């Protein structure tokens, strides 16, 4: 199979697997236990915490392990809201549902929530942010990179605006981590979510960076783990794998990004040159691996299924549906019509994508589009 859906998930790196196997075989102890078995497990978690922190330029103590990106986003939004009763929440309209849905939930509870508009490339309107951020704002949430389009947001600028008013700045870096360099100090964020399985680690583990002093309440209760913010016995093998994955991502990030950007650019140039009516979504400033393409007059779903049958995995960002197909909320927020938004397919490449893969991907996409255009009256 030609896998071109790295933004959905990534294969486990063999080195990560080896580290996890060692943890599974050797350290079954509960990190909270006083005895040596517990201490051995605790040391593994400590080491992983340092590895995870290093990927984003944080201190180890600022890392709170969670069950993944969605939980980290929920903790950031709901935990801030809980700690800042009555204060407003601001998020961009193109956030992942893991941010948007907790915001909508708070709104239903009566909380003031503002969703920031974006331009046609999907970049949040910072003038609108400046206008809305007042001392009564508890949280500003703006993702580092969009999962559908790869569009990079101006998070550092947004953080300056938020910080000036005393609001916490959160960024969902689930898609950006491991693909672009991240430094929480340069960004000026107080909260940052990321996930293990997007960077060749195991599923079921992620982290929320919580800057020292950031006021956050727990949404779970029942233990003293993770600074009280995420009670429950730690997922030791998962955390160990996440740590190793972060370590690998940190050391090879720049080389990987350069290589995959070249492949992605070549893919885009060839597709644009070979298929009429193709357009790139998301502007110039994007993740190096993501290519969200609109194919005029076609349905992304039909292309995706035909490519699947040809042995290539891509994504449309929406489930198969007969009616009212809700297209990507990201593309709609960018001002596209439902028909335009439905004509899009997301290709995302990664660490294991080869030159030959790209050559074959171009041929398959051309073949699928020709097949679909051929059957149209």
């Amino acid at each position, binding site marked *: 199979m030609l896998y071109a859906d790295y933004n959905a998930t990534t294969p486990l790196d063999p080195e990560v697997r080896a580290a996890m196997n060692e943890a599974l075989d050797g350290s079954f102890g509960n990190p909270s236990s006083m005895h040596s078995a517990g201490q051995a497990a605790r040391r593994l978690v400590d080491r992983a915490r340092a590895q995870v922190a290093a990927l984003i330029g944080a201190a180890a103590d600022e890392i709170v392990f969670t069950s993944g990106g969605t939980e980290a986003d929920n903790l950031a939004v709901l935990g801030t809201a809980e700690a800042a009763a009555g204060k407003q929440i601001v998020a961009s309209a193109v956030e992942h549902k893991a941010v948007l849905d907790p915001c909508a939930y708070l709104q239903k509870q009566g909380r003031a929530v503002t969703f920031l508009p974006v331009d046609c490339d999907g970049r949040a309107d910072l003038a609108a942010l400046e206008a809305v951020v007042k001392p009564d704002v508890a949280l500003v949430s703006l993702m580092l990179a969009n999962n559908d389009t790869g569009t990079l947001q101006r998070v550092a600028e947004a953080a300056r605006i938020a910080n000036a008013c005393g609001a916490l700045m959160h960024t969902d870096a689930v898609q950006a981590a491991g693909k672009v360099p991240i430094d929480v100090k340069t960004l000026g964020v107080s909260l940052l979510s990321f996930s293990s399985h997007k960077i060749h680690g195991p599923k079921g583990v992620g982290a929320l960076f919580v800057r020292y002093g950031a006021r956050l309440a727990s949404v779970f209760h029942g233990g003293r783990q993770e600074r009280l913010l995420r009670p429950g016995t730690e997922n030791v093998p998962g955390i160990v794998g996440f740590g190793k994955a972060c370590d690998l991502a940190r050391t090879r990030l720049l080389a990987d990004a350069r290589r995959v950007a070249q492949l992605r650019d070549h893919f885009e140039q060839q597709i644009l040159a070979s298929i009429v009516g193709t357009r790139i979504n998301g502007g110039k400033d994007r993740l190096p691996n993501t290519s969200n393409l609109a194919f005029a007059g076609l*349905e992304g*779903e*039909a292309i995706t*299924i035909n490519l699947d049958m040809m042995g290539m995995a891509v994504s449309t960002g929406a*489930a*198969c*549906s*007969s*009616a009212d197909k809700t297209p990507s909320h990201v593309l709609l927020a960018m001002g596209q019509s439902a028909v335009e938004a439905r004509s899009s397919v997301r290709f995302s490449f990664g660490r294991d994508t080869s030159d030959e893969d790209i050559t074959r991907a171009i041929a398959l996409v051309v073949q699928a589009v020709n097949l679909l255009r*051929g059957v149209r009256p």
Partner: protein
Amino acid sequence: MSERIVIAMSGGVDSSVAAAMLKEQGHTLIGVTLKLQECHDAHGSKSCCGVDGITRAREVAGDLGFPHYVLDCVKDFEKLVLEPAWQEYASGRTPSPCLSCNEKVKFGLLLDWAARLGIPRVATGHYARLEKGEDGRPKLLRGHDAGKDQSYFLAGLTLDQLDRAMFPVGHLRKPEVRDWAKESGLPTAETPESQDACLVAPGESYAEMLRKHFDAPARAGEIVDEAGKVVGQHDGFHVYTIGQRKGLPAGAASRRWVKAISAETGQVTVTSDASELVATDFIAKQVNWLAGNLPTQPLSCSVQVRYRHPSEPATIVAQTDGSLRVTLKTPVKAITPGQAAVFYDGDRTLGRGWID
């Protein structure tokens, strides 16, 4: 010749075997399960939202080695099948939603969806057969298993829809289908028989489920005898159907049946004379005719007035408005407005109309 075919998979044994047969013939399959209802609307019935079916269908597709997708039809199913069905109940009639589902969803939305993928054909696990007539047009025939034949439910499909349909198990009998499944080791071999009452929670009538779904008021009223004398009260006429015996107040006579339902007065009329329930004449409207043009002369054929009912000899005469006047050779009990009348010439399905 190998074709690309969409196979509609309910997760039951019939569509699983249909898939296995097509796969064996060398076709390239795309499995699809239609999601018709949201899980949180499933009223506590485990299989209602089709999750069990989706899981089983996905397992079969995985075992047979072809892709499987879930097509979310919840909104369309509500608009195209459930809403019209409730409108029928609310008008004192008894709908046949399975026909509408085949006409508008399985061979409507799903055919359209397949066409958008560039795939002309959709196969299902229905017990019915297709043959090509001398004129090149498809002929819809009864399934070989008389007890399972589903041509009644398919009689509203147009010739174009039938042209693109495939019923791979239509020539088999149910035990043969089960044997096929067992021999091929399909995980659905022992799946219990799915009932026609799709979406109904245990212990609840379809009509009542629809009423709750649309949050419609139940129209309570009087139960009267043929003389107009009030013999009882009911909580909503939608739960009654012509010929029904259960749920009526015991009267002087030992037995009573529903003879008529009036949406205008809200009255349910009962009779204690069984002969009052039979009729020889009715009008079938919105006719879908599969055998050329509507007959210009009176035509002798047979007619089936509900599912799992023998077909009866009848003469049909086309009316100027395109409806059919149906005259039965012998009287038939409880001909129910809203049900489909399906016409046959031997095994061949000639068409269907809605009983007026």
